[in-house]
């Protein structure tokens, strides 16, 4: 009876562990997916400003490839890197967009 109880407890614990791991993995996947989506939007904005960077695109592709392989930690890291690059490119484009005419005179 005690043995049976121990087995049941073990099974319940293992199930809880698996469920919790699955939930954590699912949360990582959602987070990575959201980060990729934000990076995609930022890169599209940068491209509209004629200043999308190929390095942003490369990071984005790596994020998407990692996501496809269920490597959510890598996907998240690369997506965040892509976001940073895209934000810098947008700031660069916006800060000098109005100055392009000056270069004609130079």
């Amino acid at each position: 009876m005690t043995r049976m109880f121990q087995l049941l407890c073990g099974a319940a614990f293992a199930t809880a562990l698996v469920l919790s791991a699955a939930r954590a993995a699912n949360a990582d996947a959602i987070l990575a997916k959201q980060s990729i989506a934000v990076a995609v939007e930022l890169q599209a904005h940068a491209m509209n400003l004629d200043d999308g960077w190929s390095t942003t695109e490369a990071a984005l592709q790596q994020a998407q490839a990692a996501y496809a392989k269920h490597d959510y930690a890598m996907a998240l890291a690369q997506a965040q890197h892509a976001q940073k690059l895209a934000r810098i490119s947008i700031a660069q484009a916006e800060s000098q967009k109005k100055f392009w005419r000056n270069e004609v005179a130079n």
Partner: protein
Amino acid sequence: MRVLFVVLGMLLIAPLVQAAPPSVAVEPAADLKAFRTNFRSQFPDLLLNGYVNGPYNFSKSERTQWNQIMEFPPYEFALQEGKELFETKFPDGKSYASCFPNGGIGIAQTYPKFDAISSKVATLGIALNECRDAHGMQPLNLTKGPPAAIETYMVHTSRGKPIDVTIPDDPRALAAYEAGKEYFYSRRGQLNFSCASCHVQAAGKRLRGDVLAPALGIAAIFPIYRSKWGDMGTLVRRFIGCNKKVNAQPVKADSARYRNLAYFLTYMSNGLPMAAPGARP
């Protein structure tokens, strides 16, 4: 007292009211003149027609190598292939010649053109694809391969003719020209270079092992055989390559950005003789 309040109020509001930006007149002819003057002051000894020789004006050793290469021009194979492709009939019995004035012979110097119907600039490559589309054929890649070969043949029939790109007095055409000009002078990419950074400000100087070609005359030699590519490439292929070099994400080959850039850049070479197909390191 009331007057004082009104005056004070106006003084407070004044900085918030932005004056409307002065409308900048689009004057392609004035731009062309300024563009040439800039290069003339940079290279006073270089004759205008000499600009079509690009980097070979600035490096004796490269010019010697080029002269040797041109004894057996590397674009000859593309010329032959292009002629065959140009003359090949479509399934409906027509050929490319049916889509162009004068059967497509000796007309390449007038491209890019502004198409008033589509409100877009059409480069020669795009005109070829539109021709294919009109005859039920799939469009071709605009950067290399068969279209580059067909363009090679077509521009060869215009060799020596002065570039004659027209910008009609149509606000849409002027806007396309202005957009191309803006693209040319705007910095972009992680390295923050504009087209002008290399091909105006640093023209004739070295970038690592390469001599930078002046923007003036650069459009006169495309399509080119580049030793680096090992085959022919169109002007848009070069745009994509330049974008990649400064870590800027290239846009689609048939995008408005590249069409307009080609429009501006080729117009800037108006009057110079067509020297295409060319050969470059």
